[in-house]
């Protein structure tokens, strides 16, 4: 959000601590990470609150604090007037509902009179009614100048109102995560497969491992040299080396997991249909495990059929086929549909172009 390092900033990027809690529909009590136990781990990260798929959460609240010694600003400003010169708060950006605003917090000099060990205590609380927002909400703690003009004695420059003096890493609240690539399918965790954390038993020689649960998790093997660097790199997909290889690796993982995931989801839906022949498409979809429902909602188009229909209608149409036809759909349509949905052809073409380029076009 803040690019570069403004010449007038005294403090620059300051570490910030975040505490956060949520309110679930029908329950007025605020629940913290500790209250939610294991469930809390899928919601709260260091700079992320991920509410993707949690339709039951009505409110989310953040408390942000930063605490910084005044030594860096004492040469520039009269320390006794810092509370008059600066203010602290959070700026909130939500692109999908086209909003940006400032939530004012508190800034306090401690001890009041200043002194050698004085520091600034800054705190702000922001609360959101989830249904009033969409996509991702970015919340960035900032400290800015308050007066119309303010002289920085150290650098001998006059700052206008709102000039940024300090900021912290933005916190992102994901309401429905805008994900790209393989990240659009799973929560990804990097672990050492040779020394896995307790409770996880990935095959030592593989490079990925999947837990097919409510929020499917993809574990990637940090032991494989360069894999993490490659997959988290920001290089554009296009025809750059890293980007092309990353897309190719993503594609391999996604094809394998989606193929088996879709087959598993269809099998469960078929079984439900046998148990309840009169069930509607909606009934069938609701009856699926969360992960199977998610994959059907997102990827049923890969099984062919009319994409203008709702997922539950597409599912019903597939289940109305006879068993042989369903098998053919799985065997033939899934690979085709996934190639189209994942852009596999372009991925492979880019990879070939990169390889050809690195051999100066001399491919055997």
């Amino acid at each position, binding site marked *: 959000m*803040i*690019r*570069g390092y*403004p010449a*007038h*900033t005294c403090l620059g990027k300051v570490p910030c601590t975040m505490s956060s809690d949520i309110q679930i529909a029908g329950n007025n009590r605020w629940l913290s990470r500790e209250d939610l136990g294991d469930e809390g781990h899928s919601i709260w990260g260091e700079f992320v609150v991920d509410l993707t798929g949690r339709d039951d959460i009505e409110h989310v609240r953040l408390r942000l604090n930063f605490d910084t010694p005044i030594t860096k600003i004492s040469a520039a400003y009269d320390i006794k007037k810092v509370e008059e010169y600066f*203010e602290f708060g959070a*700026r909130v*950006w939500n*692109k*999908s*509902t*086209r*909003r*940006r*605003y*400032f939530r004012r917090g508190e800034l306090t000099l401690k001890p009041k009179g200043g002194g050698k060990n004085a520091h600034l205590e800054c705190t702000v609380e922001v609360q959101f009614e989830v*249904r*009033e*927002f*969409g*996509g991702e909400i970015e919340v960035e703690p*900032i400290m*800015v100048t308050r007066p*119309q003009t303010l002289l920085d004695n150290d650098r001998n420059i006059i700052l*206008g*109102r*709102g*000039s*940024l003096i300090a900021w912290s890493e933005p916190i992102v609240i994901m309401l429905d995560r*805008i994900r790209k690539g393989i990240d659009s399918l799973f929560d990804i965790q990097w672990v050492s497969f040779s020394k896995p954390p307790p409770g996880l038993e990935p095959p030592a020689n593989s490079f990925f491992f999947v837990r097919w649960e409510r929020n499917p998790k993809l574990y990637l093997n940090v032991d494989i040299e360069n894999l993490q660097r490659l997959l988290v790199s920001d290089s554009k997909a296009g025809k750059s080396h890293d980007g092309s290889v990353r897309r190719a690796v993503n594609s391999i993982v996604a094809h394998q997991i989606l193929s088996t995931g879709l087959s598993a989801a269809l099998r469960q839906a078929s079984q439900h249909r046998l148990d309840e022949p009169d069930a509607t498409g909606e009934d069938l979809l609701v009856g699926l495990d969360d992960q199977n429902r998610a994959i059907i909602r997102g990827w049923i*188009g890969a099984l062919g059929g009319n*994409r*203008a*229909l*709702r*997922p539950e209608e597409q599912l019903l149409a597939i289940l109305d086929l006879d068993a042989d036809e369903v098998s053919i759909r799985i065997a033939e349509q899934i690979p085709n549909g996934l190639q189209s949905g994942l852009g596999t052809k372009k991925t492979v073409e880019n990879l070939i172009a990169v390889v050809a380029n690195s051999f100066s076009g001399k491919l055997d």
Partner: protein
Amino acid sequence: MAAKKLCRVENIDDLTAQDVHSMIVTNKDFSISPIEWDNSPIRFDFDDSVRRSLAGRTAFSVADEVSIAIALHEALVPARESSIALLRDSGVWAWIGLYELREYVLIRWCGATQNSMLPTTPEKCSYFLTGDALVRQARCAVRRLWIAADASHRAKGDYNAVPANLALTDLYTGVFERMLGLDAELACLLTTELHQPKYVEDFRRKVLIGVGARLSTVALECLDSRQKNSLIQEVISDLAANPSVLP
């Protein structure tokens, strides 16, 4: 006459511009459902006099677009009052474009004519689609109009800035496809100033770059209207004094 209900096109996010094109060309119906909020339908009363005045047009002027934008914004007041988040639903915008204002979108954006009410190419049907990204919001034909009206309404409580917001395509995209366009007050100050004929396109572009550069070190959210206006004027006078300061 019964009040119209706001609806959405189902599964629009699964459809490409090509899919939309093929459904329009083959005259197929999209799957539609009414929007509900707290178990109640939401009204959508688009001013019939505006609809009638635009019927049969072979082209749409800025003035026409302003009247559509205002009527659309007013029709969506019940949705906005229920929850602003309803208006990020791409299905709602697809329904408005495909069912309520189809003729406008086809003629103004898709190359259609009154004789053949069909898009000239499949790609042009992307104007019926939208998404969360600012560019995708602003390039949806009907959402674009709503954004222009909403910015004016939020900034000033009236629709006086809508003509300036819609006057020039380059200015609209330069303002409303950027983060600075999320601040309605700044957006309208910029369009009101820069849509004037004394500014050429290259100068407008440089002003927007200059304002963006200033805002990388200043929190726009902390400025009042007067301070925002001063910031714009400072950038304009800096550029007028040093035209080569930006490429």
